[in-house]
């Protein structure tokens, strides 16, 4: 009976992926904001299209933060007292929610960090400093975020390793033809983004993992732009490390996740030293604690982690596949609506290879001016190099504008974006 019921609801999601966006939006207090109102004129409603930078939070997540501080808060893994038990239970429950959400084999494989950046630095230090030798190679791609470049460059400086870059094609996909030549017996690690934060390209991770395996290289997946938007199964994927942030998936800032295969995490050195991460300290030295505490020195982001757990509950209730479907629709709609604007050039591949990230340039108008003028319409987009300077150099541009969607965005907002860009064009090149 129970099986039939769960099959039913799963089928419902699969067949009817149209989200009730209006009902969803009512859960997000900030989305009903009106901007730029003055005595002499009404404001404009917020159109929030900067979700690749950070998402907004529903009441349920905000309430979980309030509830924790008001009723359950103390330090974790420390006290004998009742509140500390409460807090510890909630914190560990959140770890369990993350484990289930990405299908990790064990909860010890889920390390709470302060964000994607810290997660990558943790691997570069804890694994890289211990195992990478001079002349070893680390393979990145031209579409990486600075957070997945600089820690490896720093590791290369410390270790004498060599950094290589897998090129991209002109339409913003990984040039897989070059992969076999760049993967060598010296390649120790391939660090690759699951979804480009600029191009929106969904990368073929299965292919990369399989080929990396063939030369016995490890694979770290920067999943900051994918975990919030599409199904993640670390076991099916076979990734060695996978990292993401809470604030890009409805959670609070200040919490992120490092997933690592247990034997790798066991073999690594601790990243930061301090409380929690030790089993025993003497004047002569220390013994590190078991996983996951080994990598969680100091008081962890307790409340942000619990908030992330609430965010995962919310995402599960909506359904990650329905979220992905909805964003793909918005992306197609954006390509249709913006594609007819003269002088507008999309960065990245066709919509079928993309997530809900649409970056573009507009001839004669700098990205910052576009962002500033869109703001007058209440539309929030990102402008600049989006922490991906090597990618922009490869594309031959200094800056771009990026609209990035989440499941609470609507086709009407996409149309508004297109109309506003048209309006901006009237301001420039009027001669």
């Amino acid at each position, binding site marked *: 009976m129970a099986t039939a019921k769960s099959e039913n609801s799963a089928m419902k999601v699969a067949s009817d992926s149209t989200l009730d966006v209006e009902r969803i939006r009512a859960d997000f207090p900030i989305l009903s904001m009106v901007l*730029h109102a003055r005595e002499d*004129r009404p404001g*404009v409603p917020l159109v929030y299209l900067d979700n690749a930078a950070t998402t907004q939070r529903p009441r349920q997540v905000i309430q979980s933060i309030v509830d924790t501080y008001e009723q359950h808060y103390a330090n974790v893994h420390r006290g004998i007292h009742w509140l500390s038990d409460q807090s510890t239970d909630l914190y560990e429950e959140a770890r369990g929610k993350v484990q289930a959400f990405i299908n990790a084999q064990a909860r010890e494989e889920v390390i709470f960090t302060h964000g994607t950046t810290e997660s990558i630095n943790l691997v570069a230090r804890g694994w890289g400093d211990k195992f990478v030798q001079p002349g070893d190679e680390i393979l990145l791609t031209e579409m990486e975020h600075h957070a997945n470049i600089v820690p490896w460059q720093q590791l290369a400086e410390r270790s004498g390793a060599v950094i290589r870059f897998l090129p991209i094609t002109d339409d913003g996909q990984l040039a897989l033809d070059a992969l076999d030549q760049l993967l060598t017996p010296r390649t120790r690690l391939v660090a690759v983004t699951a979804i480009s934060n600029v191009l929106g390209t969904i990368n073929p991770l299965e292919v990369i993992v399989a080929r990396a395996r063939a030369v016995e290289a490890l694979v770290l997946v920067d999943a900051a732009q994918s975990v919030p938007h599409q199904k993640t199964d670390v076991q099916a994927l076979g990734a060695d490390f996978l990292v993401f942030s809470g604030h890009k998936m409805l959670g609070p800032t200040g919490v992120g996740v490092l997933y690592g295969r247990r034997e790798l995490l066991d073999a690594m050195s601790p990243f930061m030293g301090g409380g929690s991460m030790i089993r025993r300290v003497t004047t002569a030295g220390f013994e590190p604690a078991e996983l996951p505490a080994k990598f969680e020195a100091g008081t962890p982001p307790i409340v942000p982690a619990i908030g992330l757990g609430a965010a995962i509950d919310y995402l599960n209730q909506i359904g990650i596949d329905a979220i992905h479907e909805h964003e793909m629709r918005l992306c197609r709609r954006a390509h249709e609506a913006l594609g007819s604007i003269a002088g507008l050039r999309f960065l990245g591949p066709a919509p079928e290879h993309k997530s809900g990230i649409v970056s573009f340039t507009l001839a004669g*108008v*700098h*990205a*910052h*001016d576009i962002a*500033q*003028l869109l703001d*007058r*319409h209440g539309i929030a987009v990102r*402008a*600049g*190099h989006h922490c991906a*300077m090597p990618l*922009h150099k490869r594309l031959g541009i*200094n*800056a771009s504008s990026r609209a990035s969607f989440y499941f609470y965005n609507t086709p009407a907002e996409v149309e508004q974006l297109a109309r506003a860009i048209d*309006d*901006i064009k009237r*301001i*420039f*090149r*009027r*001669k």
Partner: protein
Amino acid sequence: MPLEEDELYQQRILDHYEEPFHRGKCPAMTHSHEDENPLCGDVVRVELAIAPDGLIREAYFEGDGCCISQASASMLIEQINGKRVADVRDFSAQDMLDLFGAKLTPNRQKCCLLCWRALQSAVYSPVSTAARGADGNGQE
């Protein structure tokens, strides 16, 4: 539409952006400096022909960036063309913001002051004859 009343994108500023004053290479360049805003990647390069007596015979700029960074560069270069090095030194950041005119948030003030910063360094940055001969040094 709120855009019509937009002080930032008023006609005077757009005119400088779309038809800048002395955008290009300075033929008799003696001094030059390039500066960039690392946050957004906007670049401005100032090229000057300064006479031994401190007269700025000719001032030019090149650059890439937003309307504010490029329009403010055009305004500033027009302002100091034919003036003296001492006038540049006396021209404060506040003078630059006043010259630009439109009100700017602190973030966008950096865009407006980009050329001003490059100019303040350029008057102290003589270019050697050898460097002047070698072309293509403007691009990284």
